[in-house]
């Protein structure tokens, strides 16, 4: 019965792919991305009879866009300028300006870094590659190839292989991370047994993926090699298993199997080859590894990208990019792309996937479309007096914790003297400043937790902000280059409050905040301490810690 069900579901899945690949029922491919996004999100909201919240105001939208696209909060000038700008096309102009700016390049690099090498942050070589790839607007497909197949002789691309090299000592890590990051598929539990929740994942899928990586090794000189032979054996851990030990095929997640051309090798030949590899893994002066005639990793990339088997690669990245901007994937969680876990908006995912593939996997194009949608620019406040609707409806914008880098950069910007930024038209100066900020942020990022699925702020973070000398020295000092230093030059409380809230929250204070903060400042006898407290209170607030 279970077997039949599997056939049925995978057949269905295949059918969907074929239909969507043809695109018969999807809206025209020529429509703007943002329009298609809003159309599908709206359709489902209507069907569920739920009204979405209104659009966010300008100040809120700008802050969100800056954090999402540039990786930092706006400066006071940027924020004031955007709100004051009366142009009807200011949002598009802003998005296009940001996406052409170095801010986008840095941030996009940082986002790739945390997705691709989450356990090895700040690998300089890998980050160099990512920076190059983003600057080139290299297609996601090409980046995938760079990371798994690569080219050690290409100065720009060779460090992409860090993705594979850094995992090469653990076969499980190579295959799991590749499956999760590039295909949105978590087959971990199929290592020991067939997946209990979806008929899609069987043990042979896990070991099929393992086969593609099992021959990979890294030499002493840190070059990536692949053995010309080698098999993966596995055995079911089920007590009722009758098959015994099996040899894994080169089997992709779709069930596609790659046959390896037979090569006659005597045991003597094999022994010789093994000795050469062993020497390369132990000695610095060994010759670089020879590329085998049959490269399983190359085959994996090939099969994953060919039209009939590209059910995972393209959809996964669309889903991951969506998840990055909305805090939730169209398929949720993002590592559960399988038949038993349907997308919230299947046609939208199909349309976006088709669009991405037909535009050379240009992620910049996808990002631009997403952030120009009305769905993206909704408010994050749900004030209907009841629990907000299912997050999968995207009726209200989700509050997202900042990444360590976003938070660090934003703290540095907020605590800086707001009158001392380069003017908006001085692009070159800004590039320099951004690079300095990026370096300074490196020193802070390690203090903060990388947000995961159910992120919590650690009490260590609250203790750090409360009692660390470093926080006081960096963010609360009253020298001329800092916000406190600027505030002390202002004599009027209202000016102080406006400047502080503007610099830190990228907006003007509300009346009730003005009154509370004014009361606070008046109740203090020591002006300098009062200003520091004010800045501390705003810097440690949720508005600073989260994107909303």
């Amino acid at each position, binding site marked *: 019965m279970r077997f039949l069900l599997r056939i049925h579901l995978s057949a269905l899945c295949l059918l969907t792919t074929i239909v969507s690949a043809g695109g018969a029922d999807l809206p025209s491919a020529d429509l703007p991305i943002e329009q298609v996004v809003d159309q599908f999100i709206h359709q489902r909201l209507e069907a569920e009879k739920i009204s979405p919240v209104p659009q966010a105001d300008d100040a809120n939208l700008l802050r969100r866009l800056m954090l999402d696209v540039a990786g930092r909060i706006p400066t006071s000038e940027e924020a004031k300028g955007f709100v004051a700008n009366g142009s009807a096309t200011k949002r598009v102009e802003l998005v296009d300006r940001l996406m052409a700016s170095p801010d986008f390049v840095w941030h996009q690099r940082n986002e790739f870094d945390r997705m691709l090498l989450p356990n090895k942050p700040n690998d300089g070589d890998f980050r160099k590659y990512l920076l190059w790839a983003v600057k080139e607007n290299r297609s996601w497909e090409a980046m995938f190839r760079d990371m798994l197949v690569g080219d050690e002789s290409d100065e720009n691309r060779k460090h992409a292989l860090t993705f594979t090299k850094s995992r090469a000592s653990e076969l*499980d890590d190579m295959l799991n991370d590749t499956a999760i990051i590039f295909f949105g598929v978590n087959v*971990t539990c199929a290592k020991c047994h067939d997946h209990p929740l979806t008929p899609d994942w069987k043990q042979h899928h896990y070991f099929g993926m393992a086969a593609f990586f099992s021959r990979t090794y890294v030499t002493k000189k840190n070059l990536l090699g692949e053995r010309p032979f080698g098999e993966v054996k596995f055995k079911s851990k089920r007590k009722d298993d009758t098959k015994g030990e099996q040899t894994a095929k080169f089997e992709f997640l779709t069930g596609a199997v790659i046959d390896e051309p037979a090569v006659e090798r005597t045991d003597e030949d094999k022994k010789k080859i093994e000795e050469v590899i062993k020497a390369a893994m132990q000695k610095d002066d060994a010759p670089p590894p020879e590329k085998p005639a049959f490269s399983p990793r190359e085959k994996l990339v090939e099969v994953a990208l060919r039209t009939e088997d590209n059910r995972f690669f393209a959809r996964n990245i669309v889903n991951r990019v969506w998840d990055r901007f909305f805090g939730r994937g169209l398929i949720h*969680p993002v590592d*559960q792309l399988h038949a038993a876990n349907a997308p919230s908006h299947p046609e939208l995912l199909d349309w976006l996937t088709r669009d991405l593939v037909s535009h050379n996997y240009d992620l910049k194009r996808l990002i631009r479309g997403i952030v120009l949608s009305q769905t993206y620019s909704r408010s994050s406040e*749900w004030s209907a007096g009841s629990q907000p609707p299912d997050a999968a409806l995207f009726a209200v914008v989700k509050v997202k914790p900042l990444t360590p880098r976003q938070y660090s950069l934003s703290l540095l910007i907020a605590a800086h003297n707001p009158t001392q930024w380069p003017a908006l038209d001085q692009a070159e100066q800004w590039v320099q400043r951004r690079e300095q900020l990026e370096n300074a942020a490196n020193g802070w990022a390690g203090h903060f937790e990388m947000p995961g699925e159910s*992120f919590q702020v650690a009490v260590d973070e*609250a203790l750090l902000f409360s*009692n660390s000398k470093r926080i006081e020295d960096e963010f609360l000092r009253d020298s001329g280059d800092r916000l406190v230093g600027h505030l002390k030059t202002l004599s009027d409380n209202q000016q102080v409050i406006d400047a502080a809230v503007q610099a830190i929250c990228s907006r003007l204070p509300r009346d009730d905040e003005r009154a*509370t903060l004014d009361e606070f400042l008046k109740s203090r006898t020591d002006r300098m301490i009062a200003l520091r407290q004010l800045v501390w209170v705003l810097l440690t607030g949720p508005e600073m810690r989260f994107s909303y």
Partner: protein
Amino acid sequence: MTVSRRGFLNAAALGTAGTFAADMTRFDVLRQSSWADEVKQQGKRVILLWLAGGASQLETFDPKPGRPTGGPYRAIPTSATGVHISELLPKMAARIQQTTAIVRSLNTKNADHGGGATIMETGRIKDPGIEYPDLGAICAKELGRLDSAVPDYVSMYTSTEGRRKGTSGFLGSRYAPMFLSESMQPENIRRLESISDIDHQDRLVLRDLLAKKFTQNRYSDSLGSQTQAYQRVRGLMASEKLFDIEQEPAETRAKYGPTQFGQQCLIARRLVEAGVPFVKVARAWWDSHGENFETHRELCADLDHSMSVLLDDLKDRGLLENTLVLTFGEFGRTPSINASLGRDHFAAAWSATLSGCGIRGGACFGKTDEDGQKVADGEVGAGDLFATILTALGIDPNKEYHVGARPVPLSDFGAKPIKDVLV
């Protein structure tokens, strides 16, 4: 109380000052003498004495005197009839029947420091797709209070331990250990000189007040966790004294003695007494590839003394019935003695002890063969040990967490508690 001096809070504009003032009283709770009584009634606690590097079972709880693998030390009878342990632990020998159960049949299969430690910290083999929480994080979650004014998982570093910080894995950083990396005091727990205590309190109150406006109509657990984290700051700062053994009478300090391990055991006692659910104290470095017998003579003396003083102290204060004291490390040591008179890594047949809460004192579970090379009877794995620990604490080991759609039982799939050592 200093509330009257906090001028701005009394301002009518805020209207909420009363609530915050009431909250502040919570921080005094540590100083109240009834606290220990309350713990006794409700809270179960754990102190893990982590024997880093891997202690030899033959020189501790499973001696093989007279065998080629036995080494030079004798076995001595304990207060539990028929149970003998190494002569290196005379003080513990006198306490086995009253407090401690021994498990002699652990086979944890991984004799590599990193892998073995992961298994003994989390009760299962590392799984690439998932970050498991360790025992401390599980206990913090199951035994701690969400708004606890004390830390709920404290992990103490020693200079030789190898800095294994511990991990809360998928439970998230709310349950991450407060890790003492530099000294006997946690980091950032003390107010800076540059800010007065009143200002320090006030700015937290003001922060909370402004944050409320923001969080009111926004629904997110992460958002809530930030509020909670800042609300716990003052409480945790008040627990600074818990780490200060100078607060103890000279007589008590003298009992625990001058060793770092002894002093940390005393801190651990202070912490559990104040309601901290899980404290890990590490003693290192047992990794005796050479001169095993010298090493163990020195380390066992420290273990024997510190552990028995700790158990006595907990008992005298009525805390032992609710505090589980554990001893194990990442693995045991080979019965075979190598050419440097050392013993190497060995995970196939080794021992752990459990004392106090929920444990049948004097129980001795499992057997190794004549030379200690294999488990002869009652083989158990790390999962079974974890199931036993959780059961002793009144936690259902089969309870499941959900990681995405995946159910993860607290102790590994198929693990069973060792009934013989439980009350």
